[in-house]
């Protein structure tokens, strides 16, 4: 999709704007048909994207509890968030830990597993299926399972640690490492990233490796100089998608901490905090929650912009072969 963005941008840049009145009657007919076909999406984007996008921005300057009409309060919520909401910083920090940890896990482990499977292994399809399997399990069921995997007293992971002679941990019962529990759980979805990387690896022509071998490159040099550079577009895209998603981590935390983000707010993530104000407080604080949502949007936007802007320095596109 990142390359789709790229080619879409360049398509826009290169071309003269078409104007309706310059079109021939036949082209006008074609344009009308095209617009007719995309009408459902145009209505959808107005209703489900543009309207809420604008409305939540406006609501963020109001007090709103759904029952009574919104009441304008200016920047009050923003001032309160930055000066008087300790849980804002706490939840941002927890989310930061999750974003950094889970994205690193998915990219590094996903890439490593894809490399293993790309080593001409037997039963490739079987391994790929096994690794991918946990990521299709419904998240409610996964949460129930992982509550017991990471159970402080009799959990699977503690049993494993005990069996190999390592100390046991209290995971979700210990505020200092509760977030680490969610990072361990996030390995569940590594299979998705692995499948994407594997498809990318399989697309690298064998000749490149042959050429590198003739030049005397060893295994690690080939990995660093051939494989990784050719994979940078895929790595880039996966970092981008995973960061955007990880910032919005909510469901498993909501289920496993029963909506509390405990112990002692140690697993209160940003979206959980926002959800709390909108749907668990009485009366609901929809305006405050909208302000939190917009701050999250700005943070994600800033991260995306920085990654996209720096991508030209390290993302390597083969000439003319993209898209």
């Amino acid at each position, binding site marked *: *999709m990142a390359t789709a963005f790229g080619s*879409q941008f360049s398509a826009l840049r290169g*071309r003269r*704007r078409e104007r*309706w009145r310059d*079109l021939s009657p036949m082209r006008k007919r074609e*344009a*009308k*048909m*095209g*617009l007719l*076909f995309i009408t*459902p*999406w*145009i209505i*959808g*984007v107005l*209703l*489900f994207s543009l309207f*809420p*996008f604008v*409305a*939540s921005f406006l*609501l963020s300057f109001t007090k709103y509890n*759904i029952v009574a009409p919104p009441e304008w309060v200016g920047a009050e919520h923003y001032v309160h968030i930055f000066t008087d909401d300790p849980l804002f910083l706490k939840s941002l920090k927890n989310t930061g830990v999750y974003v950094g940890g889970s994205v690193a896990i998915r990219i590094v482990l996903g890439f490593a597993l894809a490399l*293993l499977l790309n*080593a*001409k292994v037997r039963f490739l399809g079987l391994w790929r299926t096994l690794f991918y*399997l*946990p990521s*299709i*399990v*419904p*998240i*409610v*069921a996964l949460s*129930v*399972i992982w509550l017991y995997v990471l159970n402080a*007293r*009799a959990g699977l992971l503690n*049993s494993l640690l*005990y069996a190999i002679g390592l100390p046991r941990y209290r995971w979700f019962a210990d505020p200092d490492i509760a977030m680490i529990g969610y990072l361990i759980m996030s390995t569940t979805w590594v299979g998705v*990233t692995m*499948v*994407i990387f594997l*498809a990318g690896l399989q697309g690298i022509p064998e000749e490149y490796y042959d050429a590198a*071998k003739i030049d005397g490159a060893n*295994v690690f040099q*080939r*990995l660093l100089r051939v494989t990784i550079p050719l994979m940078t577009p*895929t790595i880039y895209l*996966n970092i981008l998608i995973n960061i955007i998603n990880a910032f919005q981590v909510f469901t498993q935390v*909501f289920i496993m901490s*029963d909506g509390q983000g405990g112990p002692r707010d140690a697993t209160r993530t940003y979206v959980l905090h926002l*959800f709390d104000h*909108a749907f668990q407080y009485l009366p609901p604080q929809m305006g405050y*929650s*909208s302000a939190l*949502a917009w701050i*999250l949007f700005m943070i994600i936007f800033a991260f995306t912009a920085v990654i996209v802007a720096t991508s030209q320095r390290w993302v390597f596109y083969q000439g003319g072969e993209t898209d």
Partner: protein
Amino acid sequence: MTTATAAQNFIHRDPVNRLTRIIGRVLLYLLLIVMSLWFLVPLFWMFMSSLMPLDQVGVFPVQWIPRVWQPENYTQALEFWNFGTTFRNTMFIAIVSLIGDIGSCTIVAYGFARFRFPFRDTLFLILLATLMLPFAVRLIPVYAAYDAIGWIDTFYPLIVPAFFGNAFYIFICRQFFLGIPQDLLDAAKIDGASEVRIFTQVMIPLAKPAIVVIAILSFQNSWNDFLGPLIYLKDPDLHTLAIGLYKFTSLPGQGGIYNQQMAASTMMVLPVLIVFFLFQKQFIQGANISGLKG
């Protein structure tokens, strides 16, 4: 990297290299087995503990084989958890959304793929950009709007949006349509077929692979959805499987019946696993399209 090792050793067949090659292969498969265990053991344990007596589930270290096999955990779980109703509700939502998704996304994708009109590329760029909009930003106004028109505690918020196109599915479908040779369409046009006929009788049959991928993603999405049903459906008669399972595992007083909770989880996971094994190829394709193409 081991690919390279293997190839290298194929070139120089001396005994030392043969040995390192064998060790390398053994290590490789060992690693694959360890990783498979990491991914699968939690699911295996869910299944085994769903058949255990209660006092065996909380034992340390973990027990793997039920002392007594207790399939009645399943029937008891069914009693607490209104499986019949939640299953019906989930299927209804999933099937209607699936129809909506396939219908709207193929139509819109065809519009983007096969017609030239002013601002088409700008509009498609907007479509891609909506994929990056955090759901938290949409959540509140959309909820408030549904509340205002009386749609809370109905299925509408969970099925109606599907009929207005999903950006990601449209993207998948458009990529596919772009790959269909223009000659086919021109031939149909020369034969006097209308645009609508070309779409329904030429494009749709050809796009079957893409439609299967969308169908699977859409179904999986409805089946697994938690946040939507959580905020829109308060009435227990409207609850979905995901909400039912959540309530069953988090209700005070039921927190202790781990074996039945695992039985309930197994019942929710099993249909997804069956669909997964039937359509593995499409699942993997779905993942790939999201990460690579375009």
